[in-house]
């Protein structure tokens, strides 16, 4: 309901924008939750850049929310010029349902249309009282894990796949053992929030759980805001390369006549200012050579698998997270005993 209201609000906002101000261009960037801070600064930088280059003013409006529900808002008619979401699958859904994004959108921009990437790390309480070091610790009986529901949260799907990737390596691809491990991990989850921010609140404010599975950028943000005296980051041996993609919603942009500026907006993400800001906000830039080396030093080295190891989202999404998929089976009462 809350998200729906937000979407409705955004839709109203977009409608009023479209009718007002013919002299200045307005872009609507529909994004997911943890990009708030990044795009606030990036939008300012781009508006300045556009003013210098063309002499025109551009205003960028943002809409934030869970990645999946944001995609649904765009499908249902939210007039986004660009989408910057957490999952390729969400953009695919818009492309399939509306045709406003070309099917080959992933090849339109460099690095599979992911100007910045991130990964999944552990956030633990100060001193790491449960001594959590790697993925196998998360299946221990005395450890409680906080992660959102992969059915409703894009970030949670990366968490799930990261755990799966580690188990695949550990058990040499023995499917039964992998399922058993992931099953015992999720049975250690006392609260299955619907979104990543909800999980962070449960872990940080309510004091529930020993480990929070979190986007790397969210974990750094939590440390920055709450102070390193409360939490610390534990980097597992293996994780997944999370690629939050961006795309131009051609159908909307063409109708509003904003194609050129929207395209420039996305391309600006790949330039020095864009990459620098991404790194400053704890996203791993696609072109590290363009970012500030001091920012880059904060990112630990670890082995990263990619979504292509799972056959890409087109295969992974229905197999793992579809109705009756692997995740749903974990909670089947028969497998609980």
């Amino acid at each position: 309901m809350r998200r729906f209201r937000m979407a409705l609000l955004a839709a109203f906002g977009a409608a009023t924008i479209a009718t007002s101000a013919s002299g200045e261009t307005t872009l609507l960037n529909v994004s997911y939750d943890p990009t708030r801070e990044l795009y606030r600064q990036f939008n300012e930088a781009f508006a300045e850049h556009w003013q210098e280059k063309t002499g025109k003013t551009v205003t960028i409006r943002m809409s934030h929310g869970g990645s999946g529900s944001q995609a649904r808002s765009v499908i249902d008619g939210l007039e986004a010029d660009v989408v910057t979401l957490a999952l390729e699958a969400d953009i695919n859904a818009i492309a399939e349902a509306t045709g406003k994004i070309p099917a080959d959108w992933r090849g339109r921009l460099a690095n599979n249309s992911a100007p910045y990437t991130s990964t999944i790390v552990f956030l633990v309480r100060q001193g790491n009282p449960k001594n959590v070091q790697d993925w196998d610790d998360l299946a221990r009986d005395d450890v409680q894990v906080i992660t959102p529901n992969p059915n409703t949260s894009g970030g949670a799907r990366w968490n799930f796949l990261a755990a799966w990737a580690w188990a695949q390596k550990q058990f040499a691809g023995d499917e039964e053992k992998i399922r058993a491990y992931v099953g015992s991990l999720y049975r250690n989850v006392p609260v299955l929030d619907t979104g990543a921010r909800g999980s962070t609140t449960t872990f940080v404010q309510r004091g529930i759980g020993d480990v929070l599975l979190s986007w790397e950028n969210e974990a750094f943000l939590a440390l920055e805001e709450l102070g390193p005296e409360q939490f610390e980051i534990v980097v597992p041996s293996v994780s997944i390369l999370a690629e939050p993609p961006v795309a131009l919603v051609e159908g909307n942009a063409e109708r509003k006549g904003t194609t050129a500026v929207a395209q420039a907006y996305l391309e600006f993400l790949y330039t020095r200012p864009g990459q620098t800001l991404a790194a400053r906000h704890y996203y791993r830039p696609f072109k590290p050579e363009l970012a500030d080396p001091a920012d880059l030093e904060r990112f630990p080295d670890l082995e990263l698998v990619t979504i292509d190891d799972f056959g890409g989202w087109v295969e992974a999404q229905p197999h793992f997270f579809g109705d009756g998929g692997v995740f749903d089976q974990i909670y089947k009462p028969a497998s609980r005993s």
Partner: protein
Amino acid sequence: MSDAIFMRFRQPSVLPGFGLTLGFTLAYLSGIVLIPLAALILKSAGLGWADIWRIATDARTLAALRLSFGASFIAASINAVFGLLLAWVLVRYSFPGRRLVDAMIDLPFALPTAVAGIALTALYAPNGWIGQLLAPLGLKVAYTPIGIVIALTFISLPFIVRTVEPVLRDLDREIEEAAATLGASRGQTLLRVLLPSLMPAILTGYALALARSIGEYGSVIFIAGNIPYVSEIAPLLIVIRLEEFNYAGATAIAALMLAISFTMLLVINLIQTWNRRRFGHGS
């Protein structure tokens, strides 16, 4: 001919304008209630009966429905008892701050449900004010089905109080006095005189509270824990299906909830009619 049919429905009334008001009622009901419901049923009709049956008998759907309806029943029942008590106190006694208490009853209506959910979770979480007192007793409230009942009790409280209050106020005190002079004990007065008169109002409030609780989403997801088969409510399952872009599956569960709710409200209405006939109140 059509006039004759029209006349058949026509109840004798001293007020003019029956045609106009009936037309308005139908148009309004269609616009506000029927059209959205028809869209819902149309959307789920895209599935075959076999698919709907599969979704309806899916263990996870059943668990979610059982939890949603069970918790709503408990919450509405709690409120039927304590809401009645509150209404009684507010109507029959005068004490300093009564108006303040009276106004407070409506707060759950005014508060955005998400805020209510977050506030209750903060209170009942193991590190919250109430939660930390309960934790040593081994009692967990937040992130369990008990938490869901508490949230639902909170949001549906005003319904019973507000429906019972005016009826109670209109009830003549003389009736109780008459019962007493005729030799009724206090218990008898309550059971044989007061409750029958209040029953229609209590049932109406009960039905409203129940309906409100079954559909509640905002406050519950914060306090529920949302674990499939344990603390996952049906409205959340609908949202989950939507997030999978599975519109048909979502509408199937929604239609199912609607059918159950409608049957329950119908039964409550029938009980009310029966009750009215039995005690001879109303027409």
